[in-house]
């Protein structure tokens, strides 16, 4: 007797332990994703402008940084070592401080002697990666012309770094004239660099004859005032349509990835659900027990094919077929893309859909079938009017579980999507067709591809975890919905 009781309590304890472990796993996954994605929020948003004073007839007027005759006034703090050390960069520097910051001030205008150039200060800025700017950062720049300069006007030209996009910059960027040299009359000047990221402006010339006098030139201020908090800016950027984590100004807009994943899921489920339910109806209503006996194990074997194998199958069969159909018309390099992925996903999920739908249909009591038959309903009417409505909860649950599985499936997308983040475009039929057959990239394969060579604890790293979190929340939500429907299905029957 006591043995039985001991066994019972052991079994009960095991149940609790197992349940606790499972719950702990979910909480741990959630916590881990959450904790690691903090690095996405610690991100500083870089910005880079090249601002130069140059002769008005300068040939390379628009390519500020490449003009050797231009006077490079400032990029940002990194080059100005002296200012780097200054704790409070928002304060205007004193005369002494400015005189120490000679690296900031480079005068090269039309000098005869190239040795007077300070090429390392000039060109270093062209090549340097932008520093991550901090909130409320300010930079000071001095502008003047050397005595050799013969013109009486000079041009202040400004231009963002090549890959810098003001739309992604969470700062209000302003170029402001703080001080004009003595004896020069200029109107107050303030340029909104986000509205007008590139431009030029003529200024009356002021020539500095001595090193002392450099400091009396035009004093400009480039101010970066944050428009939002870093958290909000990160989230805002996360919802932008551009995923380019490795370029100079990294962009972490996950919208194309999310849309691709959703689109693939939608297409795959849209294909697999009707087909799967139809097959399930056949299996549960028409097929003889013999056929069912054969079919069920086959379904289970199909459901257990590794997704890598399915992916290669897609590469060998589906992609070439699509390439043959659309390759010439759309100039595709391969048939891999959204459609190929969605088709293979449908194949991947079909056995599961059939199996779950058949379970749902078989859970409909036989008495309902008989009742419907005795009422003179044909098979089609029985299925449409009685069986499917009765099994609805179970079928929806099957669909939701299928959606969750397709969403999280990595290998098939990785192999078949061709890995280029693409924003879906349905503005015209041609664009829509292009979206379907051209390469794309979803969330799970992005994590798989990039996690291997990402810098540890960098913003990119944090954003990959943020992607994981997004996917986890999506699939978890859909799974929970599925469970809720399943529960309802059990209550009804």
């Amino acid at each position, binding site marked *: 007797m006591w043995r039985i009781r001991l066994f019972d309590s052991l079994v009960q304890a095991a149940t609790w332990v197992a349940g606790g472990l499972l719950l702990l796993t979910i909480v741990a996954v959630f916590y881990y994703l959450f904790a690691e994605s903090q690095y996405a929020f610690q991100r500083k948003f870089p910005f880079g402008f090249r601002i130069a004073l140059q002769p008005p007839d300068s040939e390379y007027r628009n390519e500020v940084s490449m003009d050797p005759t231009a006077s490079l006034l400032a990029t940002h703090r990194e080059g100005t070592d002296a200012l780097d050390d200054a704790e409070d960069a928002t304060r205007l520097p004193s005369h002494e401080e400015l005189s120490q910051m000679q690296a900031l001030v480079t005068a090269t205008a039309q000098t005869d002697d190239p040795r007077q150039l300070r090429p390392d200060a000039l060109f270093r800025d062209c090549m340097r990666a932008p520093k991550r700017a901090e909130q409320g950062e300010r930079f000071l720049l001095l502008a003047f012309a050397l005595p050799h300069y013969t013109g009486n006007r000079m041009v202040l030209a400004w231009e963002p770094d090549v890959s810098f996009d003001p739309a992604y910059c969470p700062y209000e960027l302003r170029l402001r004239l703080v001080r004009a040299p003595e004896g020069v009359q200029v109107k107050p000047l303030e340029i909104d660099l986000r509205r007008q990221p590139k431009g030029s402006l003529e200024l009356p010339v002021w020539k500095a004859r001595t090193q002392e006098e450099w400091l009396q030139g035009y004093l400009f201020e480039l101010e970066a005032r944050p428009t939002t908090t870093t958290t909000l800016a990160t989230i805002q950027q996360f919802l932008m349509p551009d995923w380019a984590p490795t370029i100079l100004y990294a962009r972490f807009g996950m919208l194309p990835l999310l849309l691709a994943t959703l689109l693939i899921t939608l297409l795959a489920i849209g294909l697999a659900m009707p087909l799967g339910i139809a097959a399930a109806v056949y299996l549960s209503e028409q097929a003889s027990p013999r056929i069912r006996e054969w079919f069920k194990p086959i379904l289970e074997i199909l459901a257990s094919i590794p997704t890598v194998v399915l992916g290669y199958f897609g590469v060998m069969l589906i992609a070439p077929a699509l390439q043959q159909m659309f390759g010439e018309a759309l100039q595709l390099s391969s048939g891999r893309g959204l459609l190929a992925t969605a088709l293979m996903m449908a194949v991947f999920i079909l056995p599961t859909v059939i199996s779950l739908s058949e379970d749902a249909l078989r859970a409909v009591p036989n008495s309902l079938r008989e009742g419907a038959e005795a*009422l003179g309903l044909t098979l089609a009417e029985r299925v449409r009017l009685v069986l499917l409505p009765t099994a609805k909860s179970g079928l929806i649950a099957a669909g939701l579980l299928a959606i969750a599985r397709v969403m999280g499936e990595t290998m098939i997308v990785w192999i078949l999507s061709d890995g280029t983040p693409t924003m879906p475009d349905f503005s015209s039929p041609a664009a829509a067709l292009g979206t379907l057959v051209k390469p794309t990239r979803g969330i799970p394969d992005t994590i798989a591809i990039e996690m291997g060579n990402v810098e540890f604890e960098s913003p990119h790293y944090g954003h990959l975890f943020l992607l994981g979190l997004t996917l986890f929340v999506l699939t978890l939500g859909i799974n929970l919905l599925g469970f809720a429907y399943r529960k309802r299905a059990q209550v009804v029957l």
Partner: protein
Amino acid sequence: MVAAMTLPKQKVAMETVELSVSYNGKPALKRVSLAFPANAVTALIGPSGCGKSTLLRCLNRMNDRIPGVEITGKVMLNGEDIYARRVNLTRLRREVGMVFQKPNPFPMSIFENVALGPRLHYGLRGRALQEVVEDALRKAALWDEVKDELHKSGLALSGGQQQRLCIARMLAVQPRILLMDEPCSALDPISTQKIEELIVELGKQYTVIVVTHNLQQAARISHYTGFLMYGELVEWGETRQVFENPTRPETEDYIRGRFG
């Protein structure tokens, strides 16, 4: 072996001729010939496994879907054999309705349960459909109880109400013959009484064939009774005669409660 027994003067609604049924070679009905009088209640009684349900289910071909079934003989309805080729099953079942042992309302509203048949078979819509539904529910003595909650789920009703809903669902298709397979065996006594009253009422307009293993019930509600044993029709006649003055010793033994 009892020969086809019909009663003179009484119109015959349905008739089985030498009907035999076997499941996977095991006989369940042996050459049963039986005529069901029109506009009367006929009860089929007999011990468990005697084939009475099988016989009933043959009358609207519900046995077709059972695997391994083999049916020989004829079932005549309107002068036609319902087992002949090219019989329209939908039309047959429109004419021969059936209620089962366990109430099986569809998981939809009360109204939809009843409206399903007439909408499909007669293409009724709107007002006409509502009238048919109301009429069927009235005939099934359910209208007064559910008229204010027609849009509640049929599953929310009590067992007896569910069974009457199933009867209403059957009546809405306007059959002439009603088959009832132990319609009260899953119900409480009060619901049973209501259904019994209903059967008596329906017997005036319809040909009702009831399978029951409750002898008192058969005696209470039926005009005619058939007694089956081991797949054979043992006795057949007016209910009073079968119960009070059976011609065969087996019938007497069964009715006196000596076995079964």
